[in-house]
């Protein structure tokens, strides 16, 4: 049974793969789209109209760095004119005060500013760029504007001990929300996993600290904490379920059910240049592929939790079990869970000097 959900709630618009940062856990695919393949302003504007007509409520502008698009102000205005809530997910690097003013005037609703850490040196090491000081400047500029602000910190072994200092950054800004997102291991992060995955002890300490800070800041700053799913008992409901809530458009216009979907063999993707969003949502084979339950194997097929987590993440199943239809191997019930346990056991028994030695990172490249 592949019942099509009425409409997606959010459109993830990967406006470009160009980025001034080179983060070692970037969620972009290893194969990046070049500038010459990027959609035009007109095509994006049509996509926003189609999205709103389909019932989409929010547009998440991301990348790469969305501010690398010279038409970013026009794109914000177009998405806002279509009636979408516009969220800009940015490193803050190609931003100055006048551009911020223009973005807010164009109707920007929300800024999600990414940080690579609380301290300059390690943050710059992770991003492969001098980026941290500029982010602190952006925090000051945002105070002058009526726009909602989330600080996003991507968490891993090298910065998970900085959570308190990260919260302090948020408290000195006008953020109403902090997102602590532990790295999820796909693409670039999968390649750097052995240097990023936190230890069990670090994770336990972070959970205690987050709980305390959530209570302390209740009503002022909402704190969300995404745990690394290798340590979870059950898998995350990846993307809220395949083809159920979200639609991602790549810089060149391919419509994907998730960021990493292109790693799954045998899937072909429709492009917004030749198909409407509604056609893609309702009929594209890629969106149908893992909807419903027909594709599931045991133990998912008869599991009580299958409507909560939808079998977890298809890309992770492929990466760890070699089969995109397998139960997500992070699930404690999955036949392939021993593989995840072995990864964790190996890492948690390694000596600290090895765990915290300076790694040779695989930095994210830039598209040609």
């Amino acid at each position: 049974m592949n019942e099509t959900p009425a409409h997606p709630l959010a459109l993830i618009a990967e406006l470009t793969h160009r980025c001034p940062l080179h983060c070692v856990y970037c969620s972009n695919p290893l194969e990046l789209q070049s500038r010459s393949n990027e959609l035009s302003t007109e095509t994006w504007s049509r996509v926003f109209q189609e999205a709103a007509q389909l019932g989409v409520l929010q547009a998440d502008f991301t990348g790469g760095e969305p501010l690398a698009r010279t038409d970013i102000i026009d794109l914000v205005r177009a998405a806002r004119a279509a009636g979408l809530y516009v969220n800009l997910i940015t490193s803050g690097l190609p931003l100055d005060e006048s551009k911020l003013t223009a973005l807010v005037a164009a109707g920007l609703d929300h800024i999600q500013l990414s940080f690579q850490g609380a301290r300059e040196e390690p943050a710059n090491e992770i991003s492969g760029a001098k980026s941290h000081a500029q982010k602190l400047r952006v925090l000051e500029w945002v105070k002058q504007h009526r726009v909602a602000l989330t600080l996003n910190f991507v968490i891993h072994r090298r910065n998970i001990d900085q959570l308190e200092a990260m919260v302090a950054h948020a408290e000195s800004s006008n953020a109403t929300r902090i997102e602590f997102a532990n790295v999820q291991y796909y693409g670039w992060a999968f390649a750097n996993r052995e240097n990023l995955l936190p230890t069990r002890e670090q994770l336990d300490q972070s959970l205690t600290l987050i709980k305390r800070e959530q209570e302390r800041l209740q009503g002022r700053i909402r704190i969300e904490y995404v745990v690394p799913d290798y340590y979870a008992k059950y898998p995350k409901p990846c993307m809220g379920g395949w083809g159920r809530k979200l639609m991602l458009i790549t810089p060149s216009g391919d419509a994907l059910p998730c960021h990493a979907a292109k790693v799954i063999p045998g899937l072909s993707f429709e492009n917004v240049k030749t198909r409407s969003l509604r056609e893609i949502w309702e009929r594209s084979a890629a969106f149908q592929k893992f909807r419903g339950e027909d594709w599931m194997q045991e133990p998912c097929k008869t599991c009580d939790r299958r409507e909560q987590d939808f079998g977890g993440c298809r890309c992770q199943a492929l990466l760890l079990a070699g089969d995109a239809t397998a139960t997500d191997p992070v699930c404690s019930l999955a036949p392939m869970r021993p593989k995840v346990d072995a990864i964790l056991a190996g890492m948690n028994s390694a000596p600290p000097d090895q765990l915290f030695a300076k790694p040779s990172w695989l930095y994210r490249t830039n598209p040609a």
Partner: protein
Amino acid sequence: MPERALRLNGPSLEIVERCDGKHTVQQIVSELQQIYSKAQPQKVEEDILGYLALLQKERALDFIPSNAGET
């Protein structure tokens, strides 16, 4: 709200529509007391204050001083 959405109907929609930076909490209460004139005014007020407090806790709105209204 980023990455979330409110499903609104009936009274919740009537309340949120008035969270526009211009209405004061007292104005919202009086207008809804008129709309829901069959309900006890006291109960309507309690429900509205409870709902606004919940939205504030979720960081969906802020209370601002009354000469400027309430957002």
